[in-house]
C-alpha cells in the first residue's frame, strides 16, 4: 500500500499526467496558432526547461518519456521523437553545466539554444531512418521561431516543470 502510494505520488507519475495535458495542448491550441506558419513546440519547451532546471540526466529522461508519448500520435516512426527530445533535454542540461551558479537569463539562453538544437535534431533523425526531404533551409526559420516563442512562454513552463518534477515526501 505504501509502495503504491509512493509510486503514485512520485514525480514520474506526475510527469506522465502533466505531459498528457501538455501534449493535448500541443495537438490542439499550439498546432492551430502558428506564428509565421510555424507550430510552437511546447512539448520540446517542457523538456528543455526540465533539462535546464534539473540537469542533463533528468532532462534526458523527461525527453525520452515525453517523446515516447508524442510518438504515439505522430505519423513518424515511434521512437524518433523520443530520441530527439531525449537529446534536447540532455543538451539543455549540459548547457547549464557550463554556467557557474546560473541566473535566470542564463537559463533563458540555455532554453533558446536547446530549443533550436532540439528542433533540428528531429529532421536529422528522420533523415537517419530514411525519411528524407525535411532537412531544408526552412528548418532554420522553424528553429528560430520555436526558440523565440519558447523563450517567451518559458516562465510559465518553469512553474509547471518545477511543480511536476519536484521531489516530495509522502506522509502516510
Amino acid at each position: 500500500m505504501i509502495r503504491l502510494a509512493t509510486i503514485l505520488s512520485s514525480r514520474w507519475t506526475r510527469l506522465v499526467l502533466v505531459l498528457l495535458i501538455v501534449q493535448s495542448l500541443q495537438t490542439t491550441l499550439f498546432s492551430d496558432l502558428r506564428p509565421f506558419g510555424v507550430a510552437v513546440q511546447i512539448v520540446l519547451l517542457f523538456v528543455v526547461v526540465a533539462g535546464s532546471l534539473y540537469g542533463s540526466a533528468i532532462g534526458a529522461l523527461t525527453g525520452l518519456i515525453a517523446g515516447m508519448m508524442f510518438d504515439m500520435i505522430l505519423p513518424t516512426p515511434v521512437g524518433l521523437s523520443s530520441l530527439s527530445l531525449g537529446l534536447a533535454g540532455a543538451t539543455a542540461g549540459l548547457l547549464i553545466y557550463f554556467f557557474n551558479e546560473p541566473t535566470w537569463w542564463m537559463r533563458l539562453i540555455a532554453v533558446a539554444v536547446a530549443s533550436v538544437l532540439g528542433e533540428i535534431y528531429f529532421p536529422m533523425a528522420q533523415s537517419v531512418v530514411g525519411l528524407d526531404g525535411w532537412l531544408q533551409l526552412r528548418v532554420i526559420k522553424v528553429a528560430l521561431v520555436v526558440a523565440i516563442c519558447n523563450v517567451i512562454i518559458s516562465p510559465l513552463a518553469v512553474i509547471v516543470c518545477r511543480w511536476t518534477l519536484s521531489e516530495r515526501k509522502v506522509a502516510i
Partner: protein
Amino acid sequence: MAAGQSTRRRAIILLILSSIILITLDLQSSSTVSGLRSVFGAVFRPVESTSRVVTRPISNAWHGVFDYNEVLDENDRLREKVAQQEGATIAAAASVRLAQELLALNGLPTLAGINAVTTQVIGDSPTNFAQTVEINQGSESGIRVGMPVLNAAGLVGKITKVYGDRAVVMLITDPDFALSVKVINTPRPASTTTTIAQSNSATPSPVVPIDPVPTLDSSVSTTTTTTTTTIAGFTPSPTTLPAAPSGVTSITVPLASDLAVRETGVIEGRGPGRKPIVRFIDNSLRFGDIQVGVPIVTAGGSRSLSPPDILVGSVSRVVERLGSAGPVLEIELVADLTNLSFLRVLLYQPITEKVAP
C-alpha cells in the same frame, strides 16, 4: 544519491534501446506498434477533446486578432472569383456530365461511380516536420489506408493512418508522398485540312482552321500551322460526312500529333512552401515539349491507390535535364492546402489491394 543516479542511467539506457527497437519495428509496419498507438489513442483522445473545447476561445481570439485583415482580403478575392466562375461552372457541369455518360456507355470507370465519405478536418500536424491533417471519420465509415482524399478543387492527399473514428491524411506536399500521375500535354497546335474534291462543286473549298487548344497560361503564345491535303477522286459517303455549313466542302481533321498526349510520371511532395514535382516523364518525341499550364491528373491503374483522372494541378515550371532523362515538372496544386476544412475520401481500393470475400 549515487543509487538514484545509477537508476536514472539505467532508465535512460533502457528508454534509448526501446526507442531504437520501436523505430525498427515501426518501419517494418509491426502490428505491435499499431496496437500500442491504438491503446495510447484511447487514453489520450478524451484529454485532447477536453483540451480542444477549453482552448477554442483562445484560438478564436488569436485568429480574430492576427487573421482579421487577411480574412477580409480573402473574402473580397473569393467574391470576385465566384462571380467569374459562375458562368463557367454551368458549362463545365454539362461537359462533366457528358463525359461521364460517354465513359459509362463505354464501360469505363468514372469518379461518379465511386462511393465517398465527407469529412471535416479536426486538426493540423502538431510538428513542423509532417504535412498531415486529421479528419473526423475513420475505419467505421469504411476508410482504409491509401484511399485518396479530395476537396472541391482536386486531390489533397491520401490516408496514411486509420483509427475507429478518425484518420490521418498525408498531404501532397509531404516529402513522403508519391503517386502516379498523367501529364495531359497538348503539343504545339497544328491542324490539317482535308479538301474533298467534289466533281459537281463549282466553289473553291475554304479552309476552316482549328482554334488553338486553350492552355491555362495565357502568356504562352502559340503559332497555328495549317497543312492542306487534297484527296483527289475521293467521294465520301453522305451518311458518314460530318455536317458542314452550306457551301463549305472542306472538313478539318486534326493531326494525330494535335490530340492531347498523355504521359505518366510520379508526383512527389517537397515540404511546405515548395511546389511538388513530377518526375520520370518519358522524353519522347511524340510527347513533345511540355507547356506551362497543362493539367496533371491521377493516372489510375490496377496498382495505383487512386482512380484515374482526379485533377491534381497544372505545370508551373518545366526543368529540362541533359541526356535522355525526362524533364522535371513543378506543379501548381489546384487545392489550397493551407485552408482545408471539408474533405471527401473516395472509398476506392485498387483491385490488387482488395481482399477476396
